[in-house]
C-alpha cells in the first residue's frame, strides 16, 4: 500500500470497512522488507560458480575500501591495510580454489575468523603494547574517573540539598551494621571456643579461678579444723578439777588463749597477718604466682 493510498483510505475503504491511519509505518515497512527477503530467498538461488563470482567481487570491493581508506592518511587504518589485504588475498585464494564455499554470511564469518584469528590477535597484541595506545588508555581512565567523580559529587550535593539520603549516607549506615555484625561474630566465636574448650585466654582464666578456689578451700579446711580443735579444748577445760583463782590466773596468763590459739591457726593458714589483721590477697599477685 502506498502512502497516497494510505492517506486516501483514512476514513473508509471502498467496501465501507473502516480504516485508520497506520501509526506504525516504519514497522510495516520493516515487516514488508522481511517478507521480501523471504521471497528472494526462494528466488535468489545461484549455482556454485556464480557464488564464487559473488565472493570474488566482495573481496575486491573490500580490498578497494581498504586502499581508499589508507589514502585518507589514517594512521591506524594504514597500519591495518597491508594486513587486511594479505588476509583477504589468502582467504579468497583458499575459498575460491575449489574447496567448499560458505553458503551464507554467518558461515563465511566463522570461516574467515578461524582462518585469520591468529594474525588479528598478534596485531592487536602488538598494537596494545604501543606507547601511544598505553598513554591514551591512561588518559581515558583519568578522564573517565574525574568525570565520574564530578557526577557523583554533583548528585550527592543535589540529594543533600533536597534532604534526601545519599549513597554515602546509606553506606555509612551499612558500615555500622557491619561493625555490629563483626562484634556479634566475635562473641559467637568466643562462645564457640569456650564450648569447644580450646580458647587459650578463656581456659587460662578458668584455670586460674580453679586454683584460687582450691587454695581457698584449703584455708577453709584449716579454719574449720582450728575451730573444731578450739571446741575440743574448751570441753577439756570444763572437765578438769577446779583450781585456785590465783593459779587459774597464772595459768591464764601463761597459756595461749583460745582466741590467740585460733589466731595462730589462722596465721599459719595465711588467713590473717601477724598483728591479727586479715590478709587480703592481691589478685594480681596471685595471678603472677
Amino acid at each position: 500500500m502506498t502512502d497516497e493510498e494510505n492517506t486516501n483510505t483514512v476514513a473508509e475503504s471502498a467496501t465501507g470497512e473502516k480504516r485508520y491511519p497506520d501509526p506504525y509505518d516504519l514497522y510495516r515497512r520493516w515487516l514488508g522488507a522481511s517478507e521480501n527477503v523471504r521471497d528472494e530467498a526462494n528466488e535468489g538461488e545461484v549455482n556454485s560458480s556464480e557464488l564464487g563470482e559473488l565472493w570474488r567481487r566482495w573481496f575486491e570491493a573490500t580490498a578497494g575500501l581498504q586502499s581508499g581508506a589508507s589514502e585518507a592518511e589514517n594512521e591506524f587504518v594504514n597500519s591495518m591495510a597491508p594486513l587486511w589485504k594479505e588476509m583477504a588475498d589468502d582467504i579468497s585464494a583458499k575459498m575460491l580454489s575449489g574447496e567448499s564455499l560458505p553458503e551464507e554470511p554467518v558461515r563465511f564469518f566463522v570461516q574467515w575468523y578461524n582462518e585469520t584469528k591468529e594474525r588479528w590477535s598478534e596485531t592487536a597484541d602488538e598494537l596494545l603494547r604501543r606507547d601511544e595506545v598505553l598513554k591514551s588508555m591512561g588518559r581515558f581512565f583519568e578522564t573517565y574517573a574525574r568525570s565520574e567523580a564530578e557526577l557523583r559529587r554533583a548528585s550527592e550535593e543535589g540529594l543533600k540539598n533536597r534532604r534526601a539520603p545519599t549513597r554515602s549516607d546509606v553506606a555509612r549506615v551499612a558500615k555500622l551494621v557491619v561493625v555490629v555484625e563483626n562484634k556479634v561474630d566475635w562473641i559467637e566465636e568466643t562462645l564457640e571456643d569456650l564450648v569447644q574448650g580450646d580458647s587459650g585466654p578463656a581456659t587460662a582464666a578458668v584455670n586460674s579461678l580453679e586454683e584460687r578456689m582450691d587454695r581457698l578451700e584449703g584455708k577453709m579446711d584449716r579454719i574449720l579444723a582450728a575451730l573444731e580443735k578450739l571446741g575440743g579444748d574448751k570441753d577439756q577445760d570444763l572437765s578438769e578439777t577446779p583450781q585456785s583463782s590465783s593459779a587459774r590466773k597464772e595459768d591464764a596468763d601463761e597459756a595461749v588463749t583460745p582466741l590467740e590459739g585460733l589466731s595462730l591457726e589462722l596465721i599459719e593458714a595465711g588467713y590473717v597477718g601477724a598483728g591479727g589483721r586479715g590478709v587480703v590477697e592481691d589478685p594480681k599477685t596471685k595471678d603472677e604466682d
Partner: protein
Amino acid sequence: MERRDAVPPEIQDTLEKYAEGTRLMSEEPRAPTGQTPKELVWAKNKARLYRYEPHAEKKHPVPILMVYALINRPYVLDLMPGNSLVEYLTGQGFDVYLLDWGVPGDEDEDLSFDDYVLDYLRPATRKVLRASEAEGYTLFGYCMGGTMAAMHAALFPGEPLANLILLTTPIDFAPEKTGLLGLWTDEKHLDPDLLVESFGNVPNEIIEHSMQMLKPVTNYVGTYAVMWECLLEEKPMETWKAMNKWISDGTPFPGAAFKQWIRDFYQQNKLVKGEIQLREHRVDLSEITCPLLNVAGERDHICPLPQAEPTMDLVSSEDKEFLVLDAGHVGLLTGRSAKKDLWPKVGSWLETRSGGES
C-alpha cells in the same frame, strides 16, 4: 492478504538459528551454574562459607577450602554438572568447602587484603576444621585467591595447614613477567588512588573490559564465532552459555584492596621481596613448609608462567611440585583438557596427602 508459500525447510532452519544467535548476543546469558548441592556453614558480611555435599561419604579426613579471586564469582569452580572441579572432588570423596567473598557494597570500599586474609580467610579455616572435625585442611587458591592463600599459608604455617594448592596464582609481579596487565598498571599510566577516589569500589565493568582487552579478538569476536559455529553445526551450547554468564558476572573490586593490588603487587612487586605487611604481620613466603602443588597454564595471558613459577623457589616446602598444563587461565580449570589433566592430577596429589582411603 495473499497466503505466502512456505519457506524451504533448510532456509527456515537457518533463519531460526540466526534468530537464536541474535537473541543470545543481545540478551544476558542465562545458564544453570553452581549446581552441586551445598550448605551454608558460616557467613560474615557478604562472605559465605559453603560445604559441598555435606551428607555424602567422605573418604579423606582432610577437608579442602577453596578460595577464588575477589573480582569474579567463584562458581567457575562448580560451573555446571559434568564440568565442575568441585563436583569431581566431592565425587572422589573429598570434603570440599568454598569461601565466596560475595558482592561488596559501598560500605566495603575500605576492605583490604589485611581484612580478607586475617578476618575472613583465617576464621573460615577454623570453621572448616570445626565443621569437619578435622585436624588439618588443604588450602586451594585460584588466581588472586591463590595469592591470598599463599599469604595466609605464610602467616600461619605448620599445623593445621596440611597442603597448599595454587592454581594460576600470580606471585611475582616483576614488569617483565606480567605481560600486558603489567604494562597497563604501570604507575605511568594508572593511578589507583584516583580510580578509588572516584568510584569507591572499582566497578566490575572496568575490570571485565580490562580483562577482555587482554585478548580483544578472542574475547569480542571469537566468542561469537564459536557461538555461531555451535549453532550452525548444532553442537551443545551449555558450556558456552555457562562460561559467558560467568564472564559477564563479575563483582566490584573493593577500593582499598584494589589500591593494594595495583600499588603493592603490580607496581612495587612487594610480595616476592617480603615487604607485604598485613597489619602487624609481615608476609614471608619462605615460611611456607607444607606440601605444595603449583599449577600454571602455558597459554595463560592473565597469570603468565613467569608470574607463577617463582613460588617454587620462594617457599621452604620439601614436598612441592610445579605442574604446567597446555591451557589458558580458565581453560585449565573447565576446558575439555581439564577433565583429563588438571582434575585427576589434583585428585591423585591430594589422595596421598589427605589421609583416609586411596
